[in-house]
């Protein structure tokens, strides 16, 4: 049963990822990316990390996709078709990517992984305790740093997106 679900998810993810990077309609490409992200959330559910799957669905499928759709609608006409790269460049890039993929796969398949057979489940309480513990191997410092990073990104995004208008107002009063 799990095999069938995993192969279906993998097929969906790969097909929609290819569609997302080759589609000539901007909005469709974003929606294909949404399907890929939902497939990745499915993998997290399958591997028994429910909290990560929920994070993936809320942050990526709920937040980032909406943000990208907003920017597409703000800067594009919906029916506009994207310009496509030259055929020679496409073929060259495909060959380079296939060579890279071959190197990756030979490295992975020649490495002997020490797989531990297990069926442990990780609860959200475990993740929360680990994230906020300041003992050995705790993650309290990166947690605080990431909150500062998010605040800085928020302030920066507002200033960059609004900068023009603010200076215009100052010029009028001066």
């Amino acid at each position, binding site marked *: 049963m799990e095999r069938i679900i995993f192969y279906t998810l993998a097929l969906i993810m790969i097909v929609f990822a290819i569609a997302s990077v080759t589609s000539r309609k901007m909005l469709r490409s974003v929606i294909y990316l949404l399907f890929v992200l939902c497939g990745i959330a499915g993998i997290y559910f399958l*591997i028994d990390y429910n909290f990560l799957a929920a994070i993936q669905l809320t942050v990526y499928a709920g937040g980032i996709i909406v943000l990208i759709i907003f920017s597409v609608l703000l800067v594009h006409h919906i029916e506009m078709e*994207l310009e496509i790269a030259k055929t020679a460049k496409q073929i060259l890039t495909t060959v380079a990517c296939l060579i890279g993929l071959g190197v990756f796969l030979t490295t992975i398949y020649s490495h002997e992984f020490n797989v531990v057979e297990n069926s442990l489940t990780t609860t959200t309480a475990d993740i929360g305790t680990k994230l906020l513990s300041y003992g050995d191997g705790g993650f309290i410092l990166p947690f605080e740093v*990431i909150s500062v990073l998010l605040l800085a990104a928020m302030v920066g995004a507002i200033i960059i997106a609004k900068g023009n208008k603010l200076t215009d107002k100052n010029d009028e009063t001066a």
Partner: protein
Amino acid sequence: MIPGISIYEILTVTSILFFIGVYGFITRKNLISILISVELILNASVINFVVINKYLYPDMLQGVMFSLFIIAVAAAETALAVSIIIGLYRQISSVEVKDVETMKH
């Protein structure tokens, strides 16, 4: 771990996703499309962290923590990139890579 699925199969899928992202990053000529490709690359690496944590060190949580931080950084990066793209569109009325010759102002 997923019963009946070996770690090799999952790593194969994530490698394919990663290189699809690289392909899109190189061939696309639009800033928003490049952002989409970067999201694909980041997601492929996050799955690798989670899968290796679950299959090789199931009693630890380091991979899950790292993937949480990667997701947070990716969200911050996307918000900044979108605001930069909108700001650029105000200045030069275009989001094509070939038109973005200067980042002044």
